[in-house]
């Protein structure tokens, strides 16, 4: 019986792929793969619908469902076999004969059971004992026959999806004929039904759909009194054959009943249900013999992807207000709203901010509609589990920003709840998020109280929403800290040391340093500070010094770096600094030249660089005619500390070559990268230009002009008209090439000119065009 394991996921995947037109899959955008994570406060499992758990709302195909072990398929079947043997056999023994024993083993046992052979072929277990006592040869004949059928309809052993599945149709039909004879000869209805199932399955898979339907019509009514899951397994093959004959209404009616009644085939039945028109739906509904069957039709439609289930819930309510499907559909709808809101509003704030509203719609409005339906149901007294309905109503009130109404509903839910522990925890979670949402001031009292509540609930709510709860709580506190003018604490709610390094804001760093020094921090404050390490002062000072260096406040940078422990400062040696800061490069070459190869020998820290800059800047004006080369060196240091030089770790903690794409981009998500100080070369330009003003000789002047041209090219790339040079329209480049032109016209006679002609393709092309 391995075939379902293999075919169901494949069939479903195929089905889902077919649902999406390939055109849609092949979009015209340079998008990365979407990854979505579910953020939710509402736990659907409060509905306690274990049998229908795969149909709770989820992004995945099914909720916590394992394709390898479809719902109790073997265990339900084995239980039936145990019951058939009047409970006198063990599960283990009957499992052996149903799923493991070979036909030969069974034939040998049959010889013992019917007296042909005096001794059993092996151990006499509970099943053999029962068969011998009752001379049950029919069941053995059936099992021998089933074991012949199984390999013809299933795939044994390892299945390679790349290989073609070959079925021996002739052998299948021969077995079908044998099965018909056995069916006629067997007396026991339980065995007859199972034989019928084997024959129907053989005909279905052999493509003999009419035969499958005819035999079903002939045999199954005779056996309708047999209470067995095999009734539904057999019906599934009849429905499959009907689908092939385009009799979708009847087939879908059967699938709905299988979905409703047979846990082991519930998932395949759900995926096979297939109605195309209103006429087919009405026809299928017409086949229903009672309200329960009609409810199954509405339920299966209500759990379809993207269904809008209020309509189905209303229909079910009209047929039977006690139907358990109502609770399944209810929790699905609440979870959809939960997901719709929190999946898009990434900062989890209140009041809920819906971004990109035209594209997204208004889940809050839908929450109001759903709540109105729930309240109507509660008022009518028809809700069979009022605690769950009140809980859902309260949560939807909260989503719609009506906190008083939410509290009132939760109170009613708590009063109505008797035995559901999950619901008790859920109500605690909701009470906490309401407390958070209603907190208007962050102070030691509210911090302590909310953090204590969070810790108490988190352990109960674990595995569902503890992480989300903390993020929600922390984010709310962040808003309050921002409002109260506490940027350091606001930063620490959702960020850590790494975030600070990415964007070293001096005000925040100083604020955190002060906060770290505060005595008597409460437990929430301690938790906040833990996000920047156990001893943050040293790291924060190093970041502060770096921020000063970026801002070109050299005195302040030096003063701060001098407070940092030598061991931390030393980390900027060697592997971190990629090259000597004052090196002159005609072609920028990050991490690829000789200096980089010997970087372990570099022992220069951020402090050293700041001091060297300070010294050179003081020295240069005093040098008169010699100042130009010193200005050139200062320019190089500033240039090399930018994204484009090998001393970039002096001012950045991270560098990605891909960040180049952000230059000049008008796309919003690149804006932060493009405005980073790492791309700012104005200080380098300023000192190169001072060098030119200091009457240099022609060699130095050529070098200064060339390096100013490099700054020009970076500015060109940052110009939004040219989008980092990715646009093909380079017509505006000329305005950035004035210094190339000066070099070309006035410095041909210099050695440096020849060097750049040799090494720089841009300049060579410019000169030769």
């Amino acid at each position, binding site marked *: 019986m391995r075939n379902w394991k293999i075919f169901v996921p494949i069939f479903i995947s195929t089905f889902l792929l077919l649902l999406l037109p390939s055109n849609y899959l092949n979009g015209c955008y340079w998008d990365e793969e979407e990854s979505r994570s579910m953020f939710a406060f509402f736990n659907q499992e409060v509905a306690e619908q274990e049998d229908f758990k795969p149909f709770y709302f989820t992004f995945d195909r099914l909720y916590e469902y394992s394709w390898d072990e479809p719902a109790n398929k073997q265990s339900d079947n084995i239980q039936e076999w145990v019951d058939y043997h009047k409970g006198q056999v063990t599960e283990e023994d009957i499992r052996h004969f149903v799923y493991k024993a070979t036909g030969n083993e069974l034939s040998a046992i049959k010889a013992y059971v019917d007296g042909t052979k005096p001794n059993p072929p092996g151990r006499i277990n509970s099943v053999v004992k029962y068969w011998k006592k009752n001379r049950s040869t029919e069941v053995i004949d059936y099992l021998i026959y089933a074991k012949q059928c199984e390999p013809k309809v299933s795939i044994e052993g390892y299945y390679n999806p790349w290989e073609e599945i070959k079925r021996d149709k002739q052998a299948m039909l021969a077995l079908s004929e044998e099965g018909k004879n056995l069916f006629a000869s067997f007396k026991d209805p339980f065995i007859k039904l199972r034989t019928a199932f084997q024959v129907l399955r053989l005909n279905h898979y052999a493509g003999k759909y009419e035969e499958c339907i005819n035999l079903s019509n002939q045999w199954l009514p005779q056996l309708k009194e047999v209470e067995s899951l095999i009734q539904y397994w057999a019906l599934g093959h009849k429905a499959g054959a009907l689908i092939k004959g385009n009799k979708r209404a009847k087939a879908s009616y059967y699938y709905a009943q299988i979905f409703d009644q047979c846990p082991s085939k519930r998932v395949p039945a759900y995926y096979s249900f297939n109605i195309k028109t209103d006429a087919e739906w009405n026809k299928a509904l017409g086949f229903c013999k009672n309200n329960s069957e009609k409810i199954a039709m509405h339920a299966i439609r209500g759990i379809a992807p993207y269904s809008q289930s209020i309509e189905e819930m209303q229909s079910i309510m009209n047929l039977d207000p006690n139907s358990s499907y109502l609770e399944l559909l209810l929790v699905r709808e609440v979870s959809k709203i939960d997901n719709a809101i929190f999946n898009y509003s990434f900062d989890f704030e209140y009041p809920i901010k819906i971004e990109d509203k035209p594209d997204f719609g208004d889940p809050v409005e839908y929450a109001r509609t759903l709540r109105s339906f729930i309240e109507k149901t509660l008022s009518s007294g028809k809700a069979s589990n009022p605690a769950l309905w009140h809980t859902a109503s309260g949560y939807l009130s909260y989503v719609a920003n009506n906190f008083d109404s939410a509290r009132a509903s939760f109170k009613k839910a708590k009063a109505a709840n008797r035995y559901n522990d999950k619901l008790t925890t859920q109500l605690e979670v909701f009470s906490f998020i309401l407390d958070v949402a209603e907190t208007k001031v962050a102070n030691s009292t509210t911090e302590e109280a909310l953090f204590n509540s969070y810790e108490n609930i988190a352990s109960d709510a674990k595995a569902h929403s503890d992480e989300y709860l903390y993020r929600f709580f922390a984010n709310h506190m962040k808003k309050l800290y921002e409002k109260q003018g506490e940027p350091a604490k606001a930063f620490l709610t959702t960020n850590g040391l790494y975030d600070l390094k990415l964007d070293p804001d001096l005000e925040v760093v100083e604020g955190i340093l002060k906060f770290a020094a505060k005595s008597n921090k409460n437990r929430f404050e301690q938790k906040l500070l833990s996000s920047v390490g156990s001893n943050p002062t040293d790291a924060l000072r190093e970041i502060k010094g770096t921020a000063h260096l970026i801002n070109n406040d050299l005195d302040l940078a030096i003063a701060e770096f001098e407070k940092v422990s030598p061991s931390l400062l030393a980390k900027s040696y060697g592997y971190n600094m990629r090259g000597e800061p004052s090196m002159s490069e005609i072609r920028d070459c990050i991490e690829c030249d000789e200096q980089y190869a010997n970087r372990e020998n570099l022992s220069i820290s951020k402090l050293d660089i700041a001091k060297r800059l300070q010294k050179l800047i003081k020295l240069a004006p005093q040098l008169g005619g010699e100042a130009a080369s010193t200005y050139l060196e200062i320019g190089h240091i500033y240039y090399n500390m930018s994204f484009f030089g090998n001393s970039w770790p002096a001012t950045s903690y991270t560098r990605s070559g891909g960040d180049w794409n952000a230059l000049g981009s008008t796309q919003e998500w690149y804006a932060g990268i493009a405005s980073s100080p790492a791309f700012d070369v104005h200080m380098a330009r300023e000192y190169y230009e001072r060098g030119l003003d200091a009457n240099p000789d022609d060699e130095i002047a050529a070098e200064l002009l060339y390096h100013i041209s490099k700054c020009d090219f970076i500015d060109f790339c940052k110009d939004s008209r040219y989008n980092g040079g990715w646009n093909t329209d*380079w017509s505006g480049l000329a305005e950035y090439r004035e210094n190339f032109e000066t070099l070309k016209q006035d410095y041909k006679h210099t050695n440096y000119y020849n060097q750049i002609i040799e090494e720089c393709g841009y300049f060579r092309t410019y000169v030769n065009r």
Partner: protein
Amino acid sequence: MKLRPIYFIFLVSLFSYSCETSPREEVNPAFYYWKTHVTLSETEREYVTDLGVKKLYIKFFDVDWQNNAAVPLASATFDKDSLPSVEIIPTVFITNRTLLNTHSSELQALADKIGAKLKRLTKKLPDHSIREWQFDCDWSGKTRDKYFELLHWLRKQVDSPNFSLSATIRLHQIKYFEKTGVPPVDRGMLMFYNMDNVKRFDTRNSILDIEVAKKYLVNFDSYPLELDIALPIFSWGVVKRNGKMVFLINNLTTADVQDTSRFVQTDARHTQVIKSTYVDGYYLYKDDIIRVEQVPIEALQESAILLNKRIQTEKLSVAFYHLDQKTIKSYPHEKLENICTHFY
């Protein structure tokens, strides 16, 4: 080093020159066939013959990631007697998640499997010459290198000078080809459709919008692959529920939403469901909004005029996506023939 592509563009822009479009040698009408069971009706066969179709691009299977493995899905089955005597080009759609999840060291093995399956399916069409495989993947920055390596290994599967590989190319992959890369194949099939965001409410026509297309019509002169063209002749209904796109109904036309007891047109592009109803297997709820997107013949003509100026391919295939009984009723073969004449 990041400067290299810039340098490359710079050189290209310095040395490129414009040239007159020379008359083409051939313009061959072609079709995509994208259904799993490949069987052409009498009407479809007649249409293909009347239009003078030379090639059918048939989707042989998809490759997707399931249960921690790359697997083939929706493998084609053939009613070979229904196929006209035209060249068949097996096409394989590969999902990005397959490439994301497949380790680089497994790409050669995946290519072996794809190649073997293509060859096995090809044997079912003994009367047709197969000289090309086409691969369809909307590769992203994360999957580009793996996709290109997979194509490299697929080429090894058919190491013959008379056999070519082609890949589908989206418009943005031409405009930004320095970023998106150029697949290592012999030809590209430019998919001149799906050019706007289908999910946005204010999108005019996500399938084909000439104004949107114009923004992408750059870099054709420097794009290194010889290009064929795929033009859309399909329609669909974009269904929005509670403001969010929930699914597409293939082949939906305005004629399908004319029943005033179930639908009301709210503006030029949108129709509202006023009574819950099934449409082609999809259950639509009251208040759902449908935007029917179709491709008028005039838009195809304008596309042809725009593309003719930019595509230099001498032996050009113009493939219409896709062959379907219902769709072709809206596009008489003379009209499509006329579209092809714009490329001469």
